[in-house]
């Protein structure tokens, strides 16, 4: 695969590494399971990237970034950036086994409290009954041991400033998690989710649809029906004082790669505490069924250095459906009401 113009040596290295990685075909998880070819050689492929009638690369279609790969590398895998082919096959087998156990014995309790460090509880509907277990949808497999690339594979340390800011937010929140709607997570309020920019995997429905028109690339993420309409005609960012949940994206083509630069995030973005987030993304179609997605996140006031991630986005046969969220968000009201009932009972008991 050749790329006509690349911004930097770093990008080139990432792409070469990724193209080697992409020779591991995505194992189909859909009912019509395809046999996974044992080995593929890049030079033998005669695939040419499809172009739109107006000559721009075609990224269109319905895709998923559903994955087993965590954002950060597990401590037990420190220093190991890639699985071998054999280890990947093992992972895939274990994933199928895990799903079988879930479907027959029920899913294991986990922490559903939304409070970090809380113990496991059982209070949840069965994902696999609704087809929401990640293994019940197509998985975009990768040999990476974390989405974040590099020897560490973790989000860099916070700056002292950020550490203090987050400590203050935590102190203000503690004991007040259910005081009012503004205390609940943005996702629970149906305002914004972490899977939109960068395009990180969601727990389920981790799908997106790309539609390209003249001078624009539109990316709709299924949850929460969020659309980014990215101009590629060179227009500048919006004024700096206008801040948005998902920022302001502007894009341009570098050869076959769509490069998107996003600024103007609010300081209450899904990366809570980050005040001047800057996200750079690269979308490159590397074969008929795969987009290689790479991103870099930086905020000098938040992290000591920029961090980058990479994940494959693979084509799915289905389509995305409306995920309306706010319109039937009974859970938010129920959560607040539940907290008020618990407080009233606690007050009654202490009054005794």
């Amino acid at each position, binding site marked *: 695969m050749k790329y006509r113009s690349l911004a930097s040596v770093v990008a080139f290295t990432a792409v070469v590494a990724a193209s080697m990685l992409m020779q591991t075909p995505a194992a189909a998880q859909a009912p019509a399971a395809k046999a996974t070819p044992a080995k593929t050689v890049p030079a033998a492929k005669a695939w040419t990237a499809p172009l739109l009638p107006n000559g721009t690369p075609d990224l269109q279609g319905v895709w998923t970034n559903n994955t087993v790969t965590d954002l950060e590398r597990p401590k037990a895998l420190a220093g190991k950036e890639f*699985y071998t082919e054999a280890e990947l096959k093992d992972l895939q087998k274990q994933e199928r086994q895990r799903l079988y156990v879930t479907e027959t014995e029920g899913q294991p309790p986990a922490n559903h409290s939304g409070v970090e460090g809380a113990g496991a509880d059982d209070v949840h*509907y069965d994902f696999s009954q609704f087809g929401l277990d990640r293994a019940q949808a197509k998985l975009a497999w990768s040999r990476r041991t974390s989405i974040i690339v590099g020897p560490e594979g973790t989000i860099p340390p916070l700056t002292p400033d950020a550490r203090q800011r987050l400590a203050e937010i935590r102190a203000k929140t503690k004991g007040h998690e259910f005081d009012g709607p503004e205390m609940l997570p943005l996702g629970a309020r149906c305002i914004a989710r*972490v899977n939109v920019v960068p395009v990180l*995997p969601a727990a389920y429905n981790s799908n997106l649809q790309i539609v390209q028109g003249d001078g624009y690339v539109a990316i709709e993420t*299924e949850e929460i029906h969020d659309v980014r309409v990215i101009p590629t005609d060179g227009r500048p960012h919006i004024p700096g004082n206008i801040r948005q949940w998902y920022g302001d994206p502007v894009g341009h083509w570098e050869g076959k790669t769509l490069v998107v630069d996003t600024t103007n995030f609010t300081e209450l973005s899904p990366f809570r505490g980050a005040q001047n987030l800057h996200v750079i993304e690269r979308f490159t179609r590397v074969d008929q069924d795969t987009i290689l997605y790479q991103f870099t996140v930086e905020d000098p006031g938040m992290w000591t250095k920029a961090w980058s991630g990479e994940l494959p986005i693979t084509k799915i046969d289905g389509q995305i459906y409306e*995920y309306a969220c706010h319109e039937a968000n009974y859970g938010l009201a129920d959560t607040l009401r*539940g907290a008020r009932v618990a407080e009233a009972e606690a007050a009654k008991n202490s009054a005794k």
Partner: protein
Amino acid sequence: MMKLILIGGLLLAAAAPAWAHHGFAAEFDQTRPLKLKGTVTKWEVTNPHSWIHIDVKGDDGKVVGWMIEGGSPNNLYRLGLTKDSLPIGSEIVVDGYQAKDRSAKAVGKSVTFSDGKRLFLGLPGPESEPDKK
């Protein structure tokens, strides 16, 4: 308990959703488990959660309407199901936990038809494989 499956030195965490959008234990009470049997009056195919409405007849003969929280229907559509896949009048059994606000709402940890067959996706799907050991 969270199981970490060791595969030749590798780790694959059990798939609790990494970016769950809110705490369910804030909405439903682990200390109030229940088992309900009722007739479906409506299936609200909504997001972020769907809700199955059932009429439950109590021991006193009175009928109480309950709302049972379930999952997003979107992937069911991709797997070929529609809003008609849970017919009105179906008899279902709900194993779950009551809402923290003590109302006639519950989360259905497991929902079956009265013959024991699991709702929506029967066991096990083609994506999973039985233990060959």
